[in-house]
């Protein structure tokens, strides 16, 4: 019984962290599909969302309002980022664009140091955080919030891209950029929307992880990189596969941490990245297409 309860416990924490990675990974996939850019600032949007929410809540703003306000601000930041850094360089080479997003990432991180300092901060849980006992394992309500909000956001994204007019226009750009342009869709405008939406998803991820593991100015780096691994496992262009990849990484991490050592946790995730890159560069779930080779 001892072993099963530990097993369930690890699954719970894996799903919690996996749901965070899933949100950020979806942001990667959306941005990559539309702009072809690996956005290294994605994780820092999460940090920004968390930090803003913590600031608003500490100013005695109602939590819901504070959270919505911080998501809104991060969406705005994402939009400004697209207009000022990606749009002017849209004709540059791919490596140049990647380095630009890196530059934005460290600029955001630097602003966070100037504004919030280097000390870790934390956000109170969304609701009372009394542990719930499930099958001899402890489940914190915040974990349910995390998984729940992620799932709702992911469903909302699905709805946005398949049912709404703007979402369909964005999807059209992914399918065939020039055909979309002929239909009167502006791909540049779609790139703006996709990065702003991705930034919002990142902010949500940061806000729901903040009550669980706190927030620091450098949290974005690790969240971003793990989500990267998830997106690559999913093949970078496939959103559902990236979500599965994210939960795989989350569970792999919690099991490594729980059963072996926390020290090598990161090494294991990135070893998985290398293995996937070396042997299955189109992702674990792709049919052989040879596009990237």
């Amino acid at each position, binding site marked *: 019984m001892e072993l099963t309860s530990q097993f369930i416990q690890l699954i719970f924490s894996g799903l919690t962290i996996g749901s965070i990675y899933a949100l950020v990974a979806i942001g990667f996939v959306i941005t990559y599909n539309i702009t*072809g850019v*690996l956005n290294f600032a994605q994780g820092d949007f999460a940090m920004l969302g968390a930090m803003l929410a913590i600031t608003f809540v500490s100013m005695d703003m109602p939590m819901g309002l504070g959270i919505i306000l911080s998501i809104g601000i991060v969406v705005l930041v994402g939009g400004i980022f697209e207009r*000022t*850094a990606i749009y*002017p*360089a849209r004709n*540059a*080479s*791919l*490596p*140049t664009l*990647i*380095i*630009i997003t*890196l*530059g*934005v*990432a*460290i*600029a*955001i*991180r*630097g*602003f966070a*140091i*100037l504004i919030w*300092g*280097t000390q870790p901060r934390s956000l109170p849980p969304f609701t009372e955080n009394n542990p719930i006992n499930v099958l001899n394992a402890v489940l914190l309500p915040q974990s349910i919030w995390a998984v729940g909000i992620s799932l709702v956001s992911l469903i909302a994204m699905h709805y946005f891209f398949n049912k709404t007019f703007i979402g369909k226009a964005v999807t059209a750009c992914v399918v065939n950029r020039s055909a979309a342009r002929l239909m009167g869709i502006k791909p540049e405008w779609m790139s703006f929307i996709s990065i702003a939406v991705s930034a919002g998803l990142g902010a949500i991820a940061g806000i729901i992880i903040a009550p669980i593991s706190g927030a620091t*100015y450098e949290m974005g*780096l690790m969240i971003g*990189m793990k989500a*990267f*691994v998830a997106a*690559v496992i999913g093949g970078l262009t496939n959103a559902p596969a990236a979500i599965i990849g994210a939960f795989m990484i989350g569970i792999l991490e919690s099991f490594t941490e729980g059963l072996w*050592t926390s*020290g*090598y946790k*990161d*090494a294991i995730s*990135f*070893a998985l*990245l*290398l293995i996937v*890159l*070396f*042997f299955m*560069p189109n992702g674990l779930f792709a049919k052989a297409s040879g596009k*990237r*080779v």
Partner: protein
Amino acid sequence: MNHSKVSELYNRHYGGLFLFIAALVIVPFVANSFLLSVLILVGLYGIVTTGLTMLMGYAGQISLGHAAFYGIGAYASAVMTGTYGMPGIVGILVGVAFAGTVAVLIGIPTLKLKENYLALATLGFGIIIFTFFKELKEITGGLNGFFGIPSFNLFGFAFDTDLKFYFLIWALLIVGILFSKNIIDSRVGRALRSIHGSDVAANSIGVNIQQYKLKVFVLSAVYASVAGSLYAHYVTFINPNLFTAMESITFLIMVVIGGSANIWGGMIGAIVYVLLNELLKEVVPMFFPNVGGEFQIVFFGILLVAILIYMPQGLAPTLGKVWRRLAGRKNKKAAVTGPPNADATVGGSKS
């Protein structure tokens, strides 16, 4: 191809170089000890960024893991000389062998892929190596660091003062730059330029793209490893936090500032970065008295974006013009000539 074109391709004008070396020899005797230590740091970074400049400018690849190669060199030297009491050169060679082998292992699978998967692979690799530095406590000392690395000793001559070390580092940097320059002007360099023109065309006339990219990647790893070894001897104390992903990004920033289209760009970037960094550490606390940590990165982040958008060739071409004017060779296109793709900082086409 007429004669002027040829000299443009293989610019062998060493007049400016002699002036530069003369300046390098004089500077340490007028500099105070702080400036000397800053210049040593510039030289060490310069060695790393020269390799990285070749990788970015001529092979069109970015690496986000060069701090790991730098760290491999540093720990190889630390363990070989500190733990086993071997001569300094053994440490360097072990580091080079290790870094080179790892670079081959990572390079072979990823350089076959398009779309800069090398960036992702090196990022992951960098974090794995960092974790090993942190966790292999019996060998590396873990997060507490590795103490008591002896000063560098080459065949009985000890580089035990900053002044001696300065000359060692800068001599090595100049040799490294000239070596890279020769490579660029050789068969390998021509092959790399043809890759820039068109992957397909280069391949069809028998240029093995992957092989050339791999060679440059391995060479850049070796440069970083050698610099890391010497860094360990210089500071005598290292810990894993010196070799994080952020450090790799710092190397990248230096290359972008200097401009990867020119082999001197790496060194110029290292100079500008280190000096700006010191300046910012002095100035910013005057306005934000409570600031801590690496607040300078906000400035470098913005600078990085601004340079890539408005000055994608980096500082090297501009400085090159000034330099030629100073050296009195207004009309000759010498010393600074980039690869043919004038509009892209980092090579490679958007495919």
